[in-house]
């Protein structure tokens, strides 16, 4: 039996790879199809998991009348299609933005600030001598923070300190670049595995 799924997947894979030579109609066909299908997929999944499971079912079968309010707010979004009424869509957007900001404040303070300060603090020297690792971390955190100080020109001693911060940043970018190369290569190898093993059957 012909495995149409693998054949189609293989051809579409090759179609995307043609972009490496340059933009062309084959790639553009694949791209257009991908955009359409991916929007359709997301729409279906969101419809099923949100509109049906969180709105229609509880409203119709459990009679949760309170859901009329978010339903109404959601419907206000549709006012965007009228230029006269589109300001109404600001109300639901206001709910999204307001709640997002409200939950972000404590989360940012806790997870990103207090906990990270806390983790930076450790004795700089112990009975065994200087704690080199801790000292490097402290130096890195402080000098990099200095680089992100915008209220004064980066000259004089602040300039020198923030220059050290740049060196730390570069170590981070370098390490990250290394790991990202690994990731990207893994993905490519994965696609090649599909092409060589499943599609062309060149190897096991």
């Amino acid at each position, binding site marked *: 039996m012909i495995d149409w799924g693998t054949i189609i997947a293989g051809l579409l894979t090759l179609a995307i790879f043609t972009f*490496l*030579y340059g933009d062309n109609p084959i790639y553009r066909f694949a791209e257009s199809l991908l955009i359409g299908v991916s929007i359709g*997929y*997301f729409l279906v*999944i*969101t419809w099923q*998991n*949100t509109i049906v*499971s*969180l709105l229609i*079912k*509880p409203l119709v079968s459990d009679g949760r009348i309170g859901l009329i309010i978010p339903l109404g707010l959601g419907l206000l979004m549709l006012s965007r299609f009228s230029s006269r009424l589109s300001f109404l869509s600001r109300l639901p957007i206001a709910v999204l933005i307001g*709640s*997002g900001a409200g*939950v972000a404040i*404590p*989360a*940012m303070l*806790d*997870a*990103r600030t207090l*906990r*990270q300060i*806390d*983790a930076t603090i450790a004795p700089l020297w112990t009975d065994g001598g200087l704690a080199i690792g801790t000292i490097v971390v402290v130096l890195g955190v402080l000098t990099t923070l200095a680089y992100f100080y915008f209220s004064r020109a980066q000259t004089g001693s602040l300039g020198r300190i923030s220059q050290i911060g740049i060196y730390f940043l570069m170590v*981070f970018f370098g*390490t*990250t670049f290394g*790991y*990202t*190369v*690994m*990731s*990207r*290569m*893994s*993905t*490519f*190898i*994965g*696609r*090649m*595995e599909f092409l*060589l093993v499943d599609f062309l059957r*060149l*190897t096991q």
Partner: protein
Amino acid sequence: MNSALSRRLAFAGLFIAVTVAMLIPSEGDVRVAPETRQLYEWIDSIPPGSQVIVSFDHEASALPEIRPLALALLRHCFERDLVPIGVSLLAEGTGIGFALMDQTADEYDKTYGEDYAFLGFKPQFIAAILSMGESIPATYPEDYLGTPIDSLPAMVGVTTYDDVVGVLSIADGSMTTHWVEYGEARFGVPIAGAVTAAMITSYDPYLASGQMVALMGGLRGAAEYEQLIGIGGGGSRGLLAQSVSHLYVLAMIIIGNLLWWRARRRKGKESV
């Protein structure tokens, strides 16, 4: 050399190098990084029968890296008789996560609904994480297949994060950050991450501060984990091609720098 040509040459070289490396069979042990061992030991220490949330926070595109990671972890979970509860913060993780759980459950003769469950996707990840912290049944009145979750034995006794051992986030992006910043910070649920190699350094401060209990990443991490649980898989394959590709990129950097140096020297001479 003009830039379009050099680009295409660089592309062609990568194609050839990787293809050749993949056609050569290779095997061998790898050195296990400490962070991979840490994750292994964390899962190994969980008492059998405990529920653990496995969150498939990735899209289909990262599958080559995600799949071996997810399979190795799920196998370990099932082998230890843990009860994984699958969720997803990204729509595409839904179908993939369900298929991966299904596949590994079969290998260990586990029954859906009793030994594991899959709740599916909720959009707007921050809202999803926070509302699960208040009540999982209210966030997911039914599972992915449409069964009411109070009828699933696997979900018995699970109402909030307090009732699970932790969250294992399998991610190709920054979703694990949201688990840390909203799930851990607010509800104190332990977070472990299995992420693509590219993402791993961005989580280092969270691992160092204890906001994450464990972290491993990449195809290489998957290979190490496979070695720890003694089951070969996608991570161990392709390791040679992986190493070759790293060396190829290093070669590109060196060639680029040599060309640039030469051009600069020539320019320097002309101006003198």
